[in-house]
């Protein structure tokens, strides 16, 4: 499949287009995800439909720059309406998004029926905007996408610091005298551009996933905005290329869904396996902590029992320790682990006692947990003083 990337002209065009759109939407999606405006992309991409249809009706041209212009105008209009309605009335953001999405799309459907009635109706290419058809990309489309994408990246580089503040603390930006409304406006325009260049390949319905997916995946690997931005761009491009290749080699499956599934796989991998934040790491950490705490509990139990006798290495039955331990996990595994560490020693068949190192460790634990705390002089420590 990969050699086709270098030999087949069509596939190379398609893959390049998908890579550009994945890259741009992934990178700009970073800001949307951080600003908790992930679903704005969904509303904008649906709202673009009437713009696309209207642009075609007015110009009878299916050149992607014309359709993108129409899509961009309506996408920006929808964004502006959503933001102003949420800021001026008590309508919530999600409600405004839902209304914008369905109403604009509905209006687009109305326009579509008008268009279908025209004698020169040749709207075949327009339906690809619903679900996307990367195979329909030609090199002029790719050039348009590349130019728009490059412009978006240059503007982002220019406004990097402002975008960073807008993503994390817009109020702080305002106090610094930055014109945050203007900055957010620029960000919105770029966001609309990213959506617009993806619509033809991915389609209206699924475009939002291409904005959110790469950014959400990238977020798991880093806490630095710049790194997240670059990672999201790479993941987006990778999803785009993989999806475009699978879809254009033989199977004739629609491109959009495959790209979205690729992005979904990246998200799943990131959620599960990203270092530190990932779920696997979290489970491992929780299991380790649990194991350590259970071990310490058994050690302290043994110490508490022994402290009622004349010497700290006085042996006790495993059954007694079991009773004192967590009812499900018991004490057997903790005891073996403690034995491996030389903190307890087996005495006979069923009895256990603290070693010298074990006593020292108990002292350390008690000091660590209760030093200066409310428990000082309390029960656990008092036992030691009594004996």
């Amino acid at each position: 499949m990969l050699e086709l990337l270098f030999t087949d002209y069509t596939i190379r065009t398609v893959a390049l287009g998908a890579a550009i759109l994945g890259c741009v939407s992934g990178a700009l999606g970073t800001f949307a995800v951080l600003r908790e405006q992930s679903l704005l992309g969904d509303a904008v991409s649906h709202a673009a439909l009437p713009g696309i249809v209207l642009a075609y009706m007015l110009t009878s041209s299916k050149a992607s720059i014309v359709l993108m212009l129409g899509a961009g105008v309506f996408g920006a209009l929808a964004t502006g309406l959503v933001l102003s309605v949420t800021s001026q009335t008590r309508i919530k953001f999600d409600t405004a998004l839902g209304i914008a999405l369905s109403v604009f799309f509905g209006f687009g459907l109305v326009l579509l029926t008008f268009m279908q009635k025209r004698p020169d109706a040749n709207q075949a290419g327009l339906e690809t905007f619903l679900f996307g058809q990367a195979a329909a990309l030609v090199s002029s489309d790719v050039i348009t996408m590349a130019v728009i994408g490059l412009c978006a990246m240059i503007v982002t580089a220019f406004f990097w610091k402002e975008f960073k503040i807008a993503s994390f603390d817009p109020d702080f930006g305002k106090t610094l005298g930055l014109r945050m409304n203007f900055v957010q406006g620029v960000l919105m325009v770029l966001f609309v551009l990213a959506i617009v260049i993806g619509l033809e390949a991915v389609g209206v319905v699924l475009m939002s996933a291409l904005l959110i997916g790469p950014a959400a995946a990238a977020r798991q690997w880093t806490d630095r905005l710049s790194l997240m931005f670059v990672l999201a761009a790479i993941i987006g491009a990778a999803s785009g290329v993989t999806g475009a290749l699978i879809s254009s080699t033989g199977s004739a499956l629609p491109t959009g869904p495959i790209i979205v599934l690729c992005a979904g796989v990246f998200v799943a991998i990131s959620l599960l396996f990203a270092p530190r934040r990932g779920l696997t790491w979290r489970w491992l950490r929780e299991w380790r902590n649990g194991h350590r705490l259970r071990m310490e509990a058994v050690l302290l139990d043994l110490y508490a029992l022994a402290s009622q006798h004349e010497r700290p290495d006085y042996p006790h039955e495993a059954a007694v320790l079991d009773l004192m331990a967590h009812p499900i996990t018991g004490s057997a595994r903790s005891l073996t682990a403690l034995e491996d560490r030389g903190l307890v020693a087996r005495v006979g068949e069923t009895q256990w006692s603290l070693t010298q190192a074990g006593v020292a460790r108990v002292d350390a634990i008690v000091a660590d947990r209760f030093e200066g705390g409310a428990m000082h002089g309390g029960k656990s420590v008092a036992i030691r003083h009594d004996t």
Partner: protein
Amino acid sequence: MTPEQIEIQLVACAVAAACAMPGVFLILRKMAMMSDAISHAILPGIVLAFFAVGELHSPWLIAGAAVAGLATVVLVESISSTRLVKEDAAIGLVFPVLFSVGVLLIAKFAGDIHLDTDAVLTGELAFAPFDRLTIGGVDFGPKSLVTMLTIGFVNAVFIATFYKELKLATFDAGMAASLGFAPVVLHYVLMALVSITAVGAFDAVGSILVVAFMIGPPACGYLLTDRLSTMMLISVGFGLLSAISGYWVAHALDASIAGCMASAVGVLFLVTVAVAPGRGLLSVVRRQSRQRWAFAEKMLAIHLKQHEGLPEEARENRAAHLQEHLRWEAEFARSVVRRAVEDGFVEDDAGFLHLTKAGRVLASETVVDA
């Protein structure tokens, strides 16, 4: 009106009413986009159920779709509960993935049957009257009408039965939990209703109109009232209104019925946003302007009182001086003085301003003397 036209409107009205009821709770719980997610994500459920039973009009398809709808809710919540991604991002990730699975299943295995993905989005209300439910030779009307009336009835019964619980769980989930009302169970039942409603409706009107009917009319209600019960009534009323007006616009223009209905929802919402008493844009603008003048008049009164009877009074309390002292534009200062004179707070003695009794009261009401 032909019987078909009446039946199309009845179906649309049933859909609008059935959608508005759970929609009210969706927007109050800030989960409006869940309707969008569910109405898209039911696609793989329908496709898989179709593969299992092999026929397009089996009730199992509705069951499959409802399961997929609930799966969406569960998936979104389990992803956002890891706190690795925010809830909105989780919604935006889950439904496109599920929808993609549905589209691909159709493209791969069912390319030749009538399970058109366009129809999922747009629906075809005009065909509703031709798919009739007949039991033992008796015609019960269009199938989608019967389905939607049933679903609407179930929604109404559920909401009426658990009205108090839903209300509390919506506005104060913590208190509902502490009183033992199980808000989580209610939440999932509500989501199940949303799923079933979306499933029943999308066959007739498409998922976009489902979203429009679920969010639009309740949003209008939210702007018009503070009472849950009134909001519910307004939502249903506005839903019916947009369904019927949308139908006639579509009829007049010979355009997509679902599209016209969604547009009608949009027009109703815009009108409501503009003119809603107290909360609409017009009243907000009017209130802001009123407050601006009232505040300026108070400032003027305070300023005049501050210098009243003091040596600098002759210099400070002149209309021309306000520009400098209060940093007002000349035009604005003149308007404030004119308004203050009209309201009887100030007397303008050829450019020298002094407070009336009412003006002195206004100033001392506003600032407590040191």
